[in-house]
């Protein structure tokens, strides 16, 4: 089976200049991740390990230093290829504050992708907007608000609703549920599994919350300093982790059902981040 979206041997090096000195940061070093149709792939790893950078390369917001993005098994090379990819693949950003236009009412922001792709007439679009809001647990009156008039979690859900408007085949979600209360979070996770089952939606799902990853994902990829240290079906990786790094991550999960016992295996901080090239 060909993967619907794949990043193959992706490398990304950032170069920054400070006072004449040049620094190179290797944010992603030779990472290959593929999502099949209807598959949910989790991407985990400590802060700064390259999850966001890798996922942005998959939709071309960032260009790889080397490596290839494949869409339905074919390398994405031309402008037209990227355009076709963006019709299929939607991205929900880690930071919902900067991804919504501050002067556009939520209803317009949601209808915009439909307009761009020439879908529906005015009343059909309004109907689709209401539908999308209700899918993410928001009421219709939210459509008349500006982004600044919403709470953090409400904005996050609007970003998700917007990404779903044109019914993508693949959704890339960067840390989209950690800002939601657990009931709304459960509602969003349920929605995503329903879309996977009914439409064969594929997901690349980045999260620091391993409880959520375990619940939602079919397969999980564990990254450390720009590289993959372990990957496999969630039951296997969570049940019998092969790398010490994964074991450490699992032991550090906070859990309200764990009575006051301290979390185990916390590594001293300060090691994180990309490797300096």
């Amino acid at each position, binding site marked *: 089976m060909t993967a619907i979206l794949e990043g193959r041997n992706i490398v990304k090096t950032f170069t920054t200049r400070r006072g004449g000195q040049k620094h190179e940061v290797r944010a992603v070093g030779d990472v290959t991740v593929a999502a099949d149709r209807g598959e949910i792939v989790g991407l985990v790893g400590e802060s700064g390990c390259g999850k966001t950078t890798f996922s942005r390369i998959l939709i071309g917001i960032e260009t790889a230093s080397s490596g290839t993005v494949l869409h339905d098994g074919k390398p994405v090379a031309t402008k037209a290829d990227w355009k076709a990819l963006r019709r299929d693949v939607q991205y929900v950003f880690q930071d919902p504050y900067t991804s919504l236009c501050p002067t556009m009412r939520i209803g317009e922001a949601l209808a915009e992708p439909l307009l761009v792709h020439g879908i529906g007439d005015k009343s059909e679009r309004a109907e689709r907007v209401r539908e999308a809001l209700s899918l993410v*647990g928001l009421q219709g009156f939210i459509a008349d608000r500006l982004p600044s008039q919403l709470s*953090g979690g*409400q904005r996050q859900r609007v970003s998700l609703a917007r990404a779903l408007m044109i019914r993508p085949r693949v959704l890339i979600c960067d840390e989209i549920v*950690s800002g939601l209360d657990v009931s709304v979070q459960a509602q969003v996770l349920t929605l995503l599994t329903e879309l996977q089952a009914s439409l064969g939606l594929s997901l690349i799902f980045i999260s620091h919350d391993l409880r959520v990853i375990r619940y939602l994902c079919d397969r999980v990829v564990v990254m450390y300093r720009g590289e993959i240290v372990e990957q496999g079906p969630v039951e296997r990786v969570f049940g019998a982790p092969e790398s010490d790094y994964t074991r450490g991550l699992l032991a550090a999960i906070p*859990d*309200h059902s764990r009575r006051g016992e301290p979390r185990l295996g916390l590594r001293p*901080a300060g090691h994180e*981040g990309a490797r300096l090239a």
Partner: protein
Amino acid sequence: MSADPALRFEHVTIAFPGAEGPLKVVNDVSFAVGSGQCLVIVGESGSGKSMACQALLGIVPAPGAVSGQGIFWEGRDLLKSSARDWMKVRGAEIAMVFQDPAAALNPLMPVGRQIVDVVRAHRSVTRAEAERRAIEVLNQVGFPEPERRMRAYPIELSGGLRQRVAIALALACGPKLIVADEATTNLDVSIQAQIIGLLRSLKEELGISIVFVTHDLGLAPEIGDEVLVMYAGHAVERGPVREVLDRPSHPYTIGLLNSAPTLESSRAHPLKPIPGQVPALDEIGAGAPFRSRCPVVVSGRCDSAKPDWTACGGGHFVACHRFAQDGIGGVQ
């Protein structure tokens, strides 16, 4: 005097003008935090947690209006303070870590300079001293190689690194009250544990008070002394963290705890979100705020009167007609 809590938030209401009268995004909410204590606020998305935090700093966005009996900080009523006085308190005595690190950071300035500027705005120190302080706080929050990387611009940092800079910014002036609005949300578990450890030592060793907003119920026992549960602008349950987590007594809190994923969750046992949707604020009216989704409504009471606080024992209180009538058996 010393028995008095450092912070008292008394019957505070925050309202925005709406088409059919004011929308109370925070509705008659009270809480108190002693020195060296931490209050954890949890609750539904949109329930007014961030608004309450902003009220503590006097930065509720217009046209929102704050009213009530007062917001007392070390005996002074901040609601009655002039904008100038409040500005002196803000940043120096009370500092906030915003839910949105992007809003706290200037995209056009290296992150280290932003901390240096804050330190120099509140303390008369030399640039070199302010720089040392910046490196010190960046080290405390686990920001790697601060001497070098403090020269990075926000865009050059990952989400978690930006969040750590935002926390360092709040700590820079040595505040006595830290308001952390989902400050650890985007952090991986080890950095999160480090920040929690840091906040804990600040409160235990320096007597700093903390208001900590989170969606992660697993964090509440690690940092909090007391917890306040909010729903649709209302405080619905409060008490010592362990009491509330072990004996949740409001139907909303019970629903919330039941929908949290745990280490054992899997799709074979689907998560159970609370059925239904949060009502619009102008639909709540006089009744219990949770009644439209509540499985144990008391007919004739919940739709007409707001429940008062009922004591559950051990300093634990719940605002629920069913609990008041039938006790814990009625809500479970």
